[in-house]
């Protein structure tokens, strides 16, 4: 399945891009995507325990399975306001 991953702030800088389109096996979870990216960019590791996930603009738990066409956003600690 194809999923577009949106990266912001420290994730974008660590990974060097603001969007990644990934070809993933059915049922891959958000947490697994985070782990996959962290393997490629170890600096992402420092967020792995506190990153949050958004799918189609809604917060979802880390174990949420993604489906084809989903837009996943990895949300490092926010600091709006």
């Amino acid at each position, binding site marked *: 399945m194809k999923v577009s991953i949106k990266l912001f702030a*420290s994730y974008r800088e660590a990974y060097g891009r603001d969007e990644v389109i990934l070809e993933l096996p059915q049922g891959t979870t958000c947490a697994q995507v985070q782990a996959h990216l962290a393997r490629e960019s170890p600096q992402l590791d420092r967020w792995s325990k506190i990153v949050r996930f958004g799918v189609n603009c809604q917060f979802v738990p880390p174990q949420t399975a993604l489906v084809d066409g989903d837009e996943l956003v990895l949300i490092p600690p926010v600091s*709006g306001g």
Partner: protein
Amino acid sequence: MSSEQDYFAVGPDPLDLLFAYTLATDLSQGAVVCMVGTVRRQTAGRSVSHLEYEAYTPMALEVFKQIATAIRERWPATGKIVIHHRTGKLALGEASVLVAVGHPHRAAAFDGCEYAIDALKSDAPIWKKEHWADGESDWVVAGSVGAKPE
């Protein structure tokens, strides 16, 4: 609860307090409480040169809507709600966020407005990068040294 009265925005344009106030007030409101967050000269003793905000706009707007729904559940008579957050580069003193809430009674207007900014700061997918006078910069992590509760 219809929320078409509300105004939510995330974007680079400077915030307009009067616009927000005019929106938030109407004949059934007794009180409108507005909170404006501005770029401070210093955070945790380190002098700031400027700030930069980045947002995942569609989801931020979604979070704002959910905040408004939650406010109306707790304070049903709440009238209009305005939540406007700036993105891009901000100089010292500029307004980064503006929240306005109207309500027939002031206590609930205060509570609703404070709830809104607190919820925004914990849930809205918006990130602040502090650029300090010494040239260094970093994304703010709430609770870390660089980010005293604002």
